[in-house]
């Protein structure tokens, strides 16, 4: 029987990055519940003029299997497939936008509030992926190419963008001046893993490309382009608003006040400015990511240095760079490093990998482990865990 080298893997990863809010604030938001005034004030004090937040979550399982040893006499082909649940939240917002939502406008009277450029993107979907990896050995090294595709079951989505936005409330609260151009495309749904599959809320197709080259087991270069594709959202609504006006409330026509009981009320321009297209559908590109990585292992040592850069071109060009130092010690491999995000923010990463009898492989990465001791100091937190089990590749039959 040929060796199949099958394996099954479970993975779970969660990370959140913010250029302003601390890990403790992010945890408060994540856990939910009631945010009291003191907590919101603390968050407000952390904010800068322009704030960004990226939250990603992914957990699932995959199965892979060697299907060919010498395809075209050169390539070893491996097939993989799996399922995962993914959530992505990206928001960029001004301090004024936060204060307006967090406190209301009553404490913000006589101030010109600006929230132009605010965006809130939230995606929840199930992904069914399958792919083929071709590996070939050359004199200089090993080259691999992976092509994969994913079918998405969209669970919910929301994309709210304010292209132009400002608000001013006068001291008496009798006049609210707004200048706003915004668009909201949303598809409400159930984000629970246990929800119905293929709920016909929307579907998407993604493509993934990975290229890697390992030179004599000492240098490894890799390029990944993930999540290239679009999704169609059904049962969605598209709302847009574009108005510049002073809102003074409804105008009451008082004609004949004393002699004709009743009044007529003319609606203000606020409702005229809103347009809504309910029950529609729209198509949208999903945020793709570009990952470039490299590692270098000096000869005859148990050390290794790795560098990985992740780019999100459609999310305001968010970039995350990670530099790690690895140490192998028997079945264990440890690594620690530094991670840079949102241009100016840095944090630490640690991780470990355990290999048991070439059958079980466990990996655990933690971003900002210091959050356990100093929650307010870091603006990121993340954890990634994988567990892989190599399945036996022989079938024994008892005579």
């Amino acid at each position: 029987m040929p060796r199949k080298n099958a394996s099954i893997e479970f993975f779970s990863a969660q990370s959140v990055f913010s250029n302003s809010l601390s890990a403790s604030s992010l945890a408060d938001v994540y856990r939910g519940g009631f945010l009291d005034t003191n907590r919101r004030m603390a968050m407000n004090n952390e904010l800068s003029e322009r704030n960004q937040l990226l939250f990603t979550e992914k957990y699932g399982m995959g199965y892979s299997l060697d299907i060919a040893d010498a395809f075209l006499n050169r390539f070893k082909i491996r097939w993989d497939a799996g399922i995962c649940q993914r959530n992505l939240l990206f928001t960029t917002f001004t301090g004024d936008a936060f204060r307006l939502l967090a406190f209301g406008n009553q404490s913000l009277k006589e101030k010109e509030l600006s929230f132009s450029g605010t965006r809130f993107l939230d995606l929840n979907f199930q992904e069914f992926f399958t792919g083929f990896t071709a590996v070939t050995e050359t004199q200089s090294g090993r080259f691999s190419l992976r092509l994969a595709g994913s079918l998405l079951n969209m669970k919910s989505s929301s994309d709210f963008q304010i292209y132009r936005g400002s608000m001013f409330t006068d001291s008496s609260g009798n006049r609210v001046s707004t200048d706003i151009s915004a668009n909201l495309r949303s598809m409400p749904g159930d984000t629970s893993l246990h929800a119905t599959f293929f709920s016909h809320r929307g579907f998407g197709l993604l493509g993934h490309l990975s290229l890697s080259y390992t030179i004599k087991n000492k240098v490894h270069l890799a390029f990944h382009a993930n999540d290239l594709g679009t999704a169609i959202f059904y049962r969605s609504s598209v709302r847009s608003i574009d108005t510049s006006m002073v809102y003074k409330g409804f105008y009451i026509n008082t004609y004949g006040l004393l002699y004709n009981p009743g009044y007529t009320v003319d609606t203000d321009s606020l409702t005229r400015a809103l347009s809504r297209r309910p029950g529609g559908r729209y198509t949208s590109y999903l945020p793709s990511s570009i990952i470039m990585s490299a590692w270098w292992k000096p000869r005859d040592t148990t050390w290794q240095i790795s560098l990985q850069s992740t780019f999100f071109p459609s999310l305001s060009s968010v970039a995350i760079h990670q530099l790690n130092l690895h140490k192998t010690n028997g079945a264990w491999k440890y690594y620690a490093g530094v991670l840079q995000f949102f241009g100016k923010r840095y944090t630490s990463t640690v991780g470990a990998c355990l290999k048991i009898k070439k059958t079980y492989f466990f990996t655990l990465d933690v971003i900002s482990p210091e959050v356990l001791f100093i929650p307010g100091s870091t603006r990121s937190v993340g954890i990634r865990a994988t567990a892989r089990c190599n399945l036996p590749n022989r079938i024994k039959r008892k005579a």
Partner: protein
Amino acid sequence: MVTGKLFTFYRCWPCLLLFLWISCKREPLRWDTKWSAPIAYGRAGVRQIIPDTLLSIKNGGEVFLAWKGRLGASGSSDVFVLPDTTVSKFFSSGLFTFTAPPGTSLFGSSEDFSFNTGARLSKIVLKTGKLRYVIKNRVKGNILFTYKLPFATKNGSVLTINRPIPAGNANNPSAISGVLDMTGYAIMMKGKMGDRFNAIASEYDVQLDPNGQAVVIAPSDSVLVSFSFENMVPEYAKGYFGQNMLKLEGNSPVTLFKNLSCEDFQLNDVTMKLTLNNAMGADIACRIKKIAAINSKNGTEVPLQHFLVNNQFQLSRAREVPYQIQSRTFAINAGNSNIADLISGLPTSLSYSIEAALNPLGNISASNDFLVSPRVFDADISIEIPMRLGLKNLAYSTGDANGNLSPENATNFKFSVSENDVAKSNGATLLLKFINDFPMEMRFEPVFFDKDNKPLAFTFLQAPAAKTLFVMRSAVPGPDGRVITPATSDIQCQMTKLDLQQLTKAVKMGYRIYLNSIDAQGKYHLWYDDYKIDFSISARLNYEMELR
């Protein structure tokens, strides 16, 4: 037995633990926010408070209340009548039997018939009228029947009925009937000789069919005709109308003070004009027996005291060519009457009794009295009140005549906030701002009704606080009586969450408005047409936001 394990899923159980973490649902994120938002605004000037039909602005901008109404009116039926009248004729050969050749005129007649009108009419022009006829033929041959009113014309044509009637017999007459519309006919009522009154000349002719056979006419052969003049209403009439007595009596409603009541209503001045109109070509001697102001809410009646009352005066006849009504107008003011007492009682109607004697001097017009319908004799009244009123709790309400608020006259109301949003709010503060130019304080008391017409209870509308909550202060005029600086009133109304929930159930709003214009010195001031009330309503709301 298969002992090999193609799929050792169970060996991977530690891995499953990682698969399931963070898949549990998280609590939604909630927090309290406070919002200020404008709700409504508006302006009420003089023209918004007082309808144009009741408003009069003088050259200096002074505001007057003006009301006009008709006390009563007489019609043509009060002067004379054109009763429904039926004229029947029976034609026969008498005792003779003869053979008539075709075309023979068997019977004929030319005579006047009279109307009992109560006057001496020489001419009428009909606004409406019908001439209904039935003709029965007992002659044993076809006949031609002709009926003519030689002095009844329309557009130059004489009123004529010309009908063929088939042969009949004594036992079985043939009959025809018809209706002629007499609208627009001018009828001379002086008879065929022109020397009578109320008489219309008529001509009959019964002729054998010229194209038929000769017929033997027996004594039993006859023709019976019946003409009924019905529903005649004159558009114009001429003659002598006699010396009838026209009476205008009744109650004329006064809408000026509709739905108003007042503890103390002081008038600085008021002018009433009584105009008597004689639209007839006949002299009238008038006597005003009574004019009184009645307030049906409190049952008071105040009679007018003025030299007009119970004195007789003449009203000349109208002119016929060109047509011109003769009128006499009498000014009644506080200086020559007790009109202020009448008006300060906020009357709901005016009771009146006016007698008008026709032709007090007899037939001086030689029977040339005329009448052009529909006006005959009527009385108009107008009241003008300067808006310098001393008001103490002048109340206007959407309630019944006794001021009890009921849902029948209430205004439709809708609080356009969802119950879900109300559930997330923790109450609200309603802020009302009034900038008032008027030298008048206003107090507002609302009542809300649900879909079952039951009043809803609110914490902010509980007595006695409700009576002092919505109060707009009076502006203070300067030494010249004009307001320069308006009065600003800021009102805060605290509404609990329960109040907001109650408000979502309201479908109607009734209200009482109380006006007070007497200042501390006992003075009250005139309104000017540039006075206004600017108002704005905003809210401060505590709202719980939720993010799932």
